[in-house]
């Protein structure tokens, strides 16, 4: 370990080295967490296409007019705290160097399409030869077995195939879907959990293992009780009146929705959990329509939910969303403005409270704010200070410190196109 002294605070995962091939968010998100808690994450990238496999290296947003593999804003966001090296794995020398890094690593991570690492000569059997207790975590759409093993996915494709796109929508409309790669975030969560679980297992048994993760299967488990309602009760979600994401079928709540507030595209969410919450709503609204006899009970409100929603929205739409949030909360009713990015990032005291948008220093972009982590550890707080690596930024540093090469040898490798 070379950078133990970087932070004097205890780091939860200090001493864990990860040979990291991940990219995009589904993989990079996993090793971002591990790096923030002190694991030494070494990203391996291809010098011949300037790390082009990870498309986020080159796509917006950008901090300024500069373009190229070191200026993708999303790449920086997902790869803070990692080191980056280049290895040309089409060369024998490149493969030798990778073998040396694997021998000295605890974990190998990747989220290529199934079988890519194997074709490069670094399948699990080879990794195990290099280090018998190696932990190998792969993450792809359908895992490394089954009828769809050769199919490719991205976050939105995973979401479509596992049911999550379908259940985000309104009745009698096409699916709205998620509007972002929710399953890239979530795939990263499960991938990081897999690494940690395998580390715990290895610590106790001395055994490594291959965790073959399938992102579509991870998504399938996140449909809530809908699958049990199907398997036990025989009731499908594809039925008239469904899905309606903004209502709450389980548990039953009404009113429960996202209602238009005053202003351009401004909305507020209100969730009335029970009859006591409804009394709170009535006290806030303070108009005769809300005191309708039948609406005092949940059954009555559910039975008349369309009319109730219509009345509530008509009342909300002349009022400010934050004022609605404040007054309903004061009456004990869960309510939250639908916040735009600027509002929750720049003006929400609850995100500031968690120091949620730390500034990192990137070698070329300079100081940039990124997504932080929504957790506070009392003994081993996470650290996010260093930006994502530029292409090959740490090649010399890693090859000299981890493999013991000299600076001259690294320069020669560069001449030969190996790094």
């Amino acid at each position: 370990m070379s950078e133990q002294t970087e932070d004097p605070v205890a780091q939860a995962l200090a001493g864990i080295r990860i040979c990291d091939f991940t990219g995009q968010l589904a993989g990079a998100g996993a090793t971002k967490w591990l790096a923030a808690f002190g694991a030494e994450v070494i990203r391996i990238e291809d010098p011949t296409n300037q790390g082009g496999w990870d498309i986020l290296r080159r796509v917006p947003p950008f901090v300024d007019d500069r373009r190229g593999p070191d200026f993708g804003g999303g790449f920086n966001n997902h790869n803070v705290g990692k080191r980056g090296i280049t290895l040309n794995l089409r060369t024998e020398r490149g493969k030798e160097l990778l073998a040396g890094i694997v021998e000295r690593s605890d974990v190998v991570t990747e989220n290529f399409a199934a079988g890519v690492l194997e074709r490069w000569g670094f399948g699990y059997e080879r990794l195990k030869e290099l280090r018998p207790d190696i932990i190998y975590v792969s993450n792809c759409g359908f895992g490394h077995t089954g009828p769809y093993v050769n199919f490719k996915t991205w976050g939105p494709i995973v979401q479509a195939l596992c049911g999550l796109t379908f259940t985000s929508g309104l009745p009698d409309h096409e699916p709205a879907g998620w509007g972002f790669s929710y399953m890239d975030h979530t795939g990263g969560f499960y991938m990081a959990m897999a690494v940690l679980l395998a580390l715990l297992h290895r610590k106790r048994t001395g055994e490594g293992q291959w965790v073959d993760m399938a992102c579509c299967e991870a998504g399938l488990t996140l449909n809530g009780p809908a699958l049990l309602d199907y398997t036990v009760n025989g009731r499908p979600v594809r039925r008239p009146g469904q899905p309606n994401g903004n209502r709450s079928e389980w548990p039953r709540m009404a009113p429960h929705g996202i209602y238009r507030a005053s202003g351009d595209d401004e909305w507020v969410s209100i969730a009335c959990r029970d009859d006591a919450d409804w009394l709170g709503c009535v006290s806030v609204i303070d108009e005769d329509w809300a005191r309708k006899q039948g609406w005092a009970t949940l059954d009555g409100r559910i039975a008349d939910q369309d009319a109730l929603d219509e009345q509530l929205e008509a009342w909300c739409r002349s009022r400010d969303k934050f004022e609605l949030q404040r007054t309903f909360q004061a009456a004990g009713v869960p309510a939250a403005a639908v916040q735009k990015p600027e509002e929750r990032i720049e003006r929400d005291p609850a995100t500031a409270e968690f120091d949620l948008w730390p500034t990192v220093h990137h070698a070329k972009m300079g100081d940039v704010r990124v997504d932080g982590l929504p957790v506070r550890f009392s003994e081993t707080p996470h650290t996010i200070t260093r930006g994502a690596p530029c292409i090959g930024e740490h090649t010399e540093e890693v090859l000299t410190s981890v493999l013991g090469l000299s600076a001259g040898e690294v320069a020669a490798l560069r001449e030969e196109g190996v790094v």
Partner: protein
Amino acid sequence: MSALQGIRVVELAHERSALAGKLLGDMGADVVVVEPVGGSPTRTHEPFVNGVPDPERSLTWWHYNTSKRGIALDWTRPAGRDALLALIARADVLLEAEDPRVLAARGLDDAVLTHALPRLVHVSLTPFGPSGPRSGERATDLTILAGGGPAWNCGYDDHELPPIRGGGGHGYAIGCHYAALSALTALVHRELGGRGQRIDVSMHAAANVTTEMASYNWLIAKGTVKRQTGRHASEGPSMPSQQRCADGRYVNTGVPPRTPKEYENLLRWLRELGLESELPEAIFLEMGAQKADIDLSKIGSDDEITAIFGAGRAALTLIASRVGAQEFFLGAQRAGLPVGVIYSPEEAFEDEH
């Protein structure tokens, strides 16, 4: 042998933390879920087996409480509190989602938990963290997703329609994923020689950093993304990627081709279906098959690259409109193109994979 065999977790039953406990239990931990004597309120949540309400028939309770053992205990009274503390003293992890200050008010503060029990990992999952100006606010899955950012991304091109909450309890799920990750990280630290600790997870903060581009587009470029039907929210409108197929079901046509091989495969499929003559942009597919990989950063500024990229999307949209959703999914994937059929949960469950 399961990864967490021998790890004991005490979980105070709560709808907000149940998934985190389930994940630890499913991975082999001995999770003891502590309910009030009358049973957890989650047991009253629909759906019920055959629609018959009963504390033992709630499928919501079943779903979120697999791989756990259960006890009932009134820890709001001194004797129950002492019994709970004895249980916690023999556990590796305490997982709870009580409102801020509730545990401390019952004598279960940091002094008797992580200070007195140096090996204990205490994970506290709250809507807004244990303190701070919003820590007293009420929250549900809906309000977490609305206030925390995800809902702003989700909905339709028509902004007369509201932002949409994805169904399935994801506001809670996001918080639980971070809670489970936190517990595992702290357990690894303990195995490496460290002590236990207290960990606070804010569900609101968790949702805020689970919005992909919505947050970092603002952080980096002060840009505000806007929701669009069935595709990523973005600053300006992007080409639709959701298509209604000939059988009335929908598909996601994915990221258009970027490599010569993908253009070649797409063109071949278009010809097999006899649709090439219906696509004026087909010429650009041929150009794509002959060029090097598309440089995505040049879309919009380089006319040729923009046309080639757009032709890939147009070809997929045309094919999708002419065949059934399943045929489109299988055909495109066999041509090496990442597309997906939009399954309902039960259809995803029944699929052969």
